[in-house]
């Protein structure tokens, strides 16, 4: 047994922060799922909207990245 209770808290917090990535997964899945359902209704318009889908993915993913950032900060900076 080494380290102290602060470090233990930081590690637990880092693990908890990773649950935020689940939210990002839901968000990205939602974006892509809606894109696919739209694309299947109107396939001719799908190709022109692929870039928009990727921008949407990137913005949805950004919030997951912040949880990753918090986890990194807790692991290495606190």
């Amino acid at each position: 047994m080494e380290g102290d209770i602060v470090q233990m808290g930081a590690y637990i917090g880092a693990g908890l922060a990773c649950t935020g990535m689940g939210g990002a997964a839901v968000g990205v899945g939602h974006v892509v799922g809606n894109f696919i359902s739209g694309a299947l209704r109107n396939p001719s318009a799908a190709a022109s909207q692929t870039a928009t889908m990727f921008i949407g993915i990137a913005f949805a993913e950004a919030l997951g990245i912040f949880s990753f950032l918090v986890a990194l900060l807790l692991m290495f900076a606190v």
Partner: protein
Amino acid sequence: MAEEAGTGLVFHPMEPFKIHSLFSGEPISWYEFFVPTNTTLWMAIGVLAIALLMVVGTLRRAIVPGRVQSVAELAYGFIHKMVEDVAGKDGLVYFPYIFTLFLFIVFSNFLGLIPGAFTPTSHIAVTAVMAMGVFVGVTALGFMKHGSHFLGLFWVSAAPLALRPILAVIEVISYFVRPVSHSIRLAGNMMAGHAVMEVFAAFAPLILFSFVGVIVTPLSVLAIVAMYALEILVAFVQAYVFTILTCVYLKDALHPGH
């Protein structure tokens, strides 16, 4: 990486991301910026590969392109169309910078997939410089083109008046968070994928030490193959996302109206 200890395997999945001097193998200090390291080596290889592709590809300028020329033209046309579609016609002035960014990221990502290679883009220090360059450049450009009107980006005129101050706060926060998410998205994706492969790679030799390895070893080898295939996709998609977000930020600077 994985070395045998008394009770089993001792490994650290972050081991391949360590930066060390190319010749002595020692870790370097922050002031030793002149020492060649593994990251500078792979950046140089990436830049050389890009130069080779572009110089050799455009050497003959054949009307019916060969293989190398096709790849060079395809990459050029792909990014050219992206800049034109997302940032508009007047964004094409900044196309060389965006194309450079894309090629550097895509080559770093793909060269990093070679076993034993180093991925420069897996370090936040590398991606943060690129993201800060985009952020500072785009902000300066917005103020140069539109002066104080650029601040209208934060004042959403389509929203009801009572809501605008609250939205302005959110817009300012989301604007300044851009370089953070821009850089960590790329670095995090590259690092996490490689680290997952390292974790599976550490499980792979379990068959040498324990009976459980009969099940675990084939599974982890399969998992490495699957992760590798995913990483090939991710390497391209992340370069694409970084580039398209650069175009989006450029569009905001050129046309700040909501």
